[in-house]
C-alpha cells in the first residue's frame, strides 16, 4: 500500500494511522481531520480501512456493540464492522465510503486506548483560557455548544462536543478533538492542564456551586463515553473517574445563555 493512501490522525498526541486503498477517501479524511493530521512515519496505532458497498447485512439501525473476544476488540454497528488488537495497536474497519463510520470507530478506539492510561473521552465542550483548560460537561441540550459559541475571543476552543481527557503526572490535560457537535467545527489541536470541570445547567442567573466528590463522580461517570460491555474496562473507567475528581476541581455551572458567563470562568 503506498504512503499516499495513508493518513495519521493525531488526537491527544495519540496518532492513529489510517490506511486505505482509495485515495479519494484519504482526501475526504484529510479534509475532515484537517488540523489533526500528523506525520505518518511512526504512529503506534494503525487502522486498515476496507471500503465496501453498503449491503443488507449492514443494517443502518443496529446499535453499536463493543466486545472483547480472544484478546481482540470487536466493534460493530449497522454501518461498520471493525476489529482492534490492543496488544499490537492495530485494527481494521469495513465500512462504506463515508466519514461518519470511521469517526465513530476512532472515538471507540480512543476510549479503549485512554482507559488503559487513566484517561477518557467526555461528553463535554472545552476551551483554553490563559493557559488553563476549562471543561464543560453535560448531556445533550445542557449547553455545551451554547457556551462554546459564547466563548470570548481569547479562548481557544478545543471542542464543543467530545473532550479528550488525558492523565498527565498528578493532573489531567484537555486536548482538542475534531469531534464537533452543533457548532460543526473541529476544535483546535492544542492541549492544556485542566483547571476546572463544570457540569452545565441553564438557569435564571450565572452561578458556580461546589459539587461533593460523590456527586461529581456520579455526574462524571454519566458523561464519559463508554461503549464496551467489559468488566475490566468498567473498573478502569470507574477508577479513572474517581481519581479525576480527587485531583481536579469539579463544579456545577448554572448559566444564562449570554456571554457574561465567561466572566466567571478564568
Amino acid at each position: 500500500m503506498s504512503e499516499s493512501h495513508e493518513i495519521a490522525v493525531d488526537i491527544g498526541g495519540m496518532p492513529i494511522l489510517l490506511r486505505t486503498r482509495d485515495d479519494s477517501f484519504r482526501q475526504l479524511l484529510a479534509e475532515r481531520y484537517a488540523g489533526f493530521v500528523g506525520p505518518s512515519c511512526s504512529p503506534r496505532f494503525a487502522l486498515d480501512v476496507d471500503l465496501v458497498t453498503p449491503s443488507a447485512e449492514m443494517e443502518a439501525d443496529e446499535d453499536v456493540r463493543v466486545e472483547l473476544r480472544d484478546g481482540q476488540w470487536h466493534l460493530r454497528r449497522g454501518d461498520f464492522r471493525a476489529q482492534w488488537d490492543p496488544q499490537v495497536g492495530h485494527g481494521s474497519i469495513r465500512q462504506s465510503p463515508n466519514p461518519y463510520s470511521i469517526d465513530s470507530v476512532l472515538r471507540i478506539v480512543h476510549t479503549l486506548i485512554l482507559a488503559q492510561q487513566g484517561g477518557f473521552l467526555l461528553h463535554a465542550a472545552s476551551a483554553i483560557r490563559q493557559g488553563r483548560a476549562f471543561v464543560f460537561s453535560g448531556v445533550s441540550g445542557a449547553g455545551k455548544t451554547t457556551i462554546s459559541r459564547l466563548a470570548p475571543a481569547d479562548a481557544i476552543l478545543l471542542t464543543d462536543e467530545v473532550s479528550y481527557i488525558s492523565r498527565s503526572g498528578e493532573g489531567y490535560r484537555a486536548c482538542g478533538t475534531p469531534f464537533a457537535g452543533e457548532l460543526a467545527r473541529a476544535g483546535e489541536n492544542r492541549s492544556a492542564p485542566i483547571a476546572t470541570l463544570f457540569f452545565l445547567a441553564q438557569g435564571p442567573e450565572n452561578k458556580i456551586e461546589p459539587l461533593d466528590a460523590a456527586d461529581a463522580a456520579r455526574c462524571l461517570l454519566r458523561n464519559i463515553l463508554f461503549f464496551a460491555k467489559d468488566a475490566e474496562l468498567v473498573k478502569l473507567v470507574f477508577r479513572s473517574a474517581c481519581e479525576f475528581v480527587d485531583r481536579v476541581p469539579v463544579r456545577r455551572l448554572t448559566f444564562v445563555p449570554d456571554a457574561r458567563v465567561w466572566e466567571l470562568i478564568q
Partner: protein
Amino acid sequence: MTETYIARSTAIAARMLGGEMMVMSAVDSTFFTLNEVATAIWQAADGRTPLSEIVVRDICNKFDVALEVAQRDAEQFVHELAQHGILLLSDHPFESAPVEAA
C-alpha cells in the same frame, strides 16, 4: 434461624470518595453510593462473618439503631446489592479465603 453470609463480588469497582463509599457493578455499570451504615456492612462483608454478627458488632454498637430495625434494614440492603451482583449471599460461610477489608 438460617444465617446469611455476605461477600463482596470481584466484579465490582469500589472506592471511598469524600467520605462516601462508591460501588459500581462491572457487569451492568449500576452505580451505588453507600451511606455510613451500608458502608460498615460492606466493609465487614468478608464471607465468613454472619450478617447477624455484623449487625450487632458494626451497626448496633456504633450507630443509634435498634437491633430489630438494623437487622431488617441490613437484610434488605444486602439483598438489593445481591440482585445487582455486587454482594454474594450464602447460608453458609464462603469457601474461598476471606475478602480483604474494603
